[in-house]
């Protein structure tokens, strides 16, 4: 899989093909988007343990735009395309019942996947900004897709906060260009090594931290998350939580800190403190929520804290914990959003007070949400336990026992608010629950069930990926980040 441009070309081409063809062929949007995302997923699996560079138009590195594939980007490609495939499968029946225009929906969804693949692969700052805009503009439209007053309000809020962040990033890119007269990321690294870190570079890093921190939903910048997740259609929420905030936020932030600006003690402290704040504030806010999806949104903020904390520890074990938790979180978080989508599909309602007793009526949804619940709150055989354990061990090894304590407290709070979901939605019932509502409820259609079951199985066996530790499955990822700036220059310029 040396032709990395296919990751951008295929979804973009199909995204624009769908509106042209679908007026004649009604089945085309459903089938084509699922098939295309599945093909992309297979391609991304093929990039595993593989390193290469794709030069756009054959122009070599510092002059032309290049795509860089290493362990970290390969893992992100697998996550994004897997979640995209699951979201497409889930959308077939979900969008049919709740929303109207499938054609526009799939078009926008594929554009989001295009943008995310581009951000993950590119080795050029300005090109990254363009792909960022592609993914974000499509996702603004997807969040407000229902066109109800609440959807539009959430979409506008999401748009305003993220546009400010985008212009911060743009200003940072302009500053770096003004300082070093280059946009290639590896070339910027060599320039920083040559001229040293001065105030312009530090200011640019601060702008990047605020900009990508907003997209990664770290705590002081998290205000858009609850509204956008609540208003968006469930597959889009899953894609937002499992793909967008990870590929546009965490991935770029980590690439910039580890491979371009270089990790330092100050940045490590920054990540650890912001991570702890996200864990605790996200978990406390989630406890008080009565809307299923809003609760999941705060849960997402809390878990982004774990990931940032893991990366901020700086040691290879900490990076492994962060990467592994990132992988696990995208699995169980999408599963939880699909569960909320199934509940909404059958009952038309997401208020925990009005729901109840769904465990007998919807066994697949109930069991899969139970698996996601165990895995997210860290019950041993499931994947979430292992990544949290690795983060805790890494925190203690790095001489930050209090961070480890906060991780444990956050984990207990997670257990509490997921017990609340299980109690009010699946096993018990809420205060305003009406028995007559659940009489004719049945399990969701088969395609939705398939995506729930696949993700639940992955959550159950995902813990096996931890075997081997820093040299195991995630070894290339840890190497790509822990190698620091010199490793990245070596990858790009082949020294």
């Amino acid at each position: 899989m040396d032709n990395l441009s296919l990751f951008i070309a295929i979804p973009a081409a199909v995204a624009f093909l769908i509106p042209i063809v679908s007026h004649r062929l009604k089945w085309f949007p459903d089938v084509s988007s699922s098939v295309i995302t599945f093909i992309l997923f297979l391609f991304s699996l093929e990039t595993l343990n593989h390193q290469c560079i794709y030069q756009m138009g054959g122009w070599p590195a510092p002059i032309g735009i290049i795509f860089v594939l290493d362990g970290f980007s390969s893992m992100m490609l697998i996550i994004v395309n897997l979640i995209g495939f699951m979201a497409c499968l889930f959308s077939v029946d979900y969008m049919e019942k709740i929303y109207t225009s499938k054609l526009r929906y799939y078009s926008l969804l594929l554009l989001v996947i295009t943008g995310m693949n581009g951000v993950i692969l590119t080795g050029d700052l300005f090109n990254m900004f363009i792909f960022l805009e592609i993914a974000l503009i499509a996702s603004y439209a997807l969040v407000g897709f229902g066109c109800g007053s609440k959807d539009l309000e959430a979409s506008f809020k999401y748009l305003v906060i993220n546009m400010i962040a985008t212009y911060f990033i743009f200003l940072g890119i302009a500053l770096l260009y003004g300082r070093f007269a280059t946009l290639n990321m590896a070339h910027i690294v060599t320039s920083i090594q040559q001229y040293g870190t001065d105030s312009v570079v530090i200011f640019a890093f601060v702008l990047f931290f605020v900009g990508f921190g907003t997209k990664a939903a770290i705590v002081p910048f998290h205000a858009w998350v609850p509204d956008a997740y609540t208003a968006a259609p469930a597959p889009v929420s899953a894609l937002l939580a499992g793909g967008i905030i990870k590929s546009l936020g965490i991935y770029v932030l980590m690439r910039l800190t580890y491979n371009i600006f270089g990790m330092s003690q100050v940045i490590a402290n920054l990540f650890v403190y912001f991570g702890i704040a996200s864990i605790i504030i996200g978990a406390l806010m989630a406890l008080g929520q009565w809307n299923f999806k809003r609760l999941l949104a705060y849960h997402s903020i809390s878990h982004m804290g774990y990931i940032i904390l893991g990366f901020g520890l700086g040691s290879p074990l900490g990076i492994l914990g962060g990467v592994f938790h990132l992988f696990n979180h995208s699995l169980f978080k999408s599963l939880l959003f699909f569960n909320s989508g199934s509940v909404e599909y059958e009952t038309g309602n997401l208020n925990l007070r009005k729901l109840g007793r769904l465990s007998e009526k919807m066994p697949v949804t109930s069991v899969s949400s139970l698996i996601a619940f165990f895995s997210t709150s860290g019950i041993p055989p499931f994947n979430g336990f292992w990544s949290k354990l690795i983060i805790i061990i890494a925190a203690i090894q790095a001489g930050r026992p209090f961070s480890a304590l906060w991780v444990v407290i956050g984990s207990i709070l997670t257990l509490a608010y997921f017990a609340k979901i299980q109690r009010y939605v699946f096993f018990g019932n809420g205060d305003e629950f009406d028995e007559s509502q659940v009489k004719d409820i049945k399990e969701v259609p088969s395609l939705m069930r398939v995506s729930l079951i696949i993700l639940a199985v992955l959550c159950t066996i995902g813990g096996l990926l931890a075997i081997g530790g820093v040299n195991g499955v995630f070894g290339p990822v840890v190497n790509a980040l822990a190698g620091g700036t010199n490793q990245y220059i070596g990858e790009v310029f082949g020294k």
Partner: protein
Amino acid sequence: MVYTLCFILFVIGLYGVTCKKNIVKIILGFLIMEYSVNLFLILLGWRKNGVVPIVEPDTVMEYFKTMSVDPLPQAMVLISIVTGLGTLILMVALAIRLYQRYGTFDITEMNRLKK
């Protein structure tokens, strides 16, 4: 000095976005922010009495090296204007739909999500 003015323009735009309550003023704030960054990029490549960055057979290379204008920021600004246009259209479309639903442009009255 000119760069400082660009930053002042950026901060004015940021003020407009964060402190104004009318949606149209927020959109104008975004435009100011975008144009300030575009202006900054253009000024980075600009040179007084600069020459076109194309090498011809009779070009004096020493003069060319010191006086040629950097063409890359201009290409970047073109792309940024296009993406800015896309976002602007989306923002205006959202503003129109919001006006239809709420009957006002005031964002403090759009609080149905919290209820």
